[in-house]
């Protein structure tokens, strides 16, 4: 068996140790990983840049549309307000109470032997219409003449399309005064009628026709 002598074993060992240097190997691995991470970062940066370009184009598009949208929204709000306001105003107009038809009906109820001295009417919100009628009646039976007026007024108002009609005497007193009706002297009575009703229908204003209340 031949004898082999390795005279360079120290040099070989040194070379091997240099090649197995952990710092050198680690640095190489780190450099490799760093290169991979750099490439990954570059890929991500490229994607981000393309997204940025997309964002820029979308923003440009929005900048073109935005003034139109703002104007449209403003106009839309304005139109909605106009519609709502017009609806409220129309309701207000439709719910008005017209006094002229009432005055016309009242004038129809006044017989020659009755007089009105005052009419006080008011529109009460949600309670309807309230009217106080004061006057005098002259007849053989002055209270009957006043009652005729009350009944006729109640009938006229009910037929006139009003609802919840109430015509009641608030006062009915005999007077000492004597009136001359058609040449005959007749006693007189003073009355106050309280009238209340709901303007259920929507009567149109009509000018009163015929005679007015007698004085």
């Amino acid at each position, binding site marked *: 068996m031949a004898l082999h002598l390795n005279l360079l074993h120290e040099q070989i060992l040194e070379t091997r140790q240099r090649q197995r240097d952990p710092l050198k190997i680690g640095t190489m691995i780190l450099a490799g990983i760093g290169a991979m991470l750099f490439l990954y970062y570059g890929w991500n940066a490229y994607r981000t840049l393309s997204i940025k370009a997309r964002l820029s184009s*979308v923003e440009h598009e929005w900048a073109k549309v935005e003034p139109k949208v703002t104007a449209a929204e403003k106009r839309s709000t304005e139109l909605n307000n106009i519609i709502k306001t017009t609806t409220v105003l129309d309701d207000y107009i439709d719910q008005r109470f017209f006094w002229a038809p009432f005055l016309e009906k009242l004038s129809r109820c006044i017989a020659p032997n009755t007089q009105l001295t005052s009419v006080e009417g008011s529109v009460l919100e949600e309670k309807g219409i309230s009217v106080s009628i004061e006057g005098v009646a002259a007849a053989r039976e002055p209270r009957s003449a006043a009652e005729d007026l009350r009944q006729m007024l109640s009938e006229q108002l009910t037929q006139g399309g009003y609802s919840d009609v109430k015509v009641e005497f608030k006062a009915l007193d005999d007077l000492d005064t004597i009136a001359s009706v058609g040449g005959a002297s007749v006693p007189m009575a003073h009355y106050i009628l309280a009238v209340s009703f709901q303007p259920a229908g929507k009567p149109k204003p009509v000018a009163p026709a015929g005679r007015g209340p007698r004085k």
Partner: protein
Amino acid sequence: MIGKLNKDQIKKVGLTAVGFVILLYVYFSFFLGPLNRSRNTMLTAIADKRAKINSSQENLAKTAKLEQQAKSATTRFAALKALNPEGAPIAWFPPRMKAFFGNQQIDKVTARLENNTAFKQPEMANWLKYTWLVDVPQVDYAQLGKAIAELENAEPLLTVSKLSIRASADQPEYQQVALSAVTVIPKQ
């Protein structure tokens, strides 16, 4: 293999490991993290803008449709608004009433402002209710009825809230009348 490493080599391996950790930390904290955050922010902004653009198209279409639908309302609104002249109502309403009743052959009519109130409805924020006291010192009943009918027809935004008719003591054929009229007028 670690068993074969000497002390110096173990130190070097440790150093390399620390360098690796630092590299990863710096990479994710200062490079990739901010980049991803910025990308996500931009993606959210794009989605947001796209949604706005899409909804804006719908809004524009809706507004155009609303404009068509509201044509009659806008015309009516303009007509109602035009019923009242520009300027303070106290300046033009009393003369208007005087002229109106004058045209009905009823003279000496005076109108004065009692108060003004706001509407309860929020959509009427730009309108006010003015209450006026209109005095008619002398009028015939039939003439008064015709005048009130004409007034109620001519002034849709006017409503007579109170009416007082009293027999005139001096001239029994005439009445003294006081009206409380409420008008709806845009705020000046």
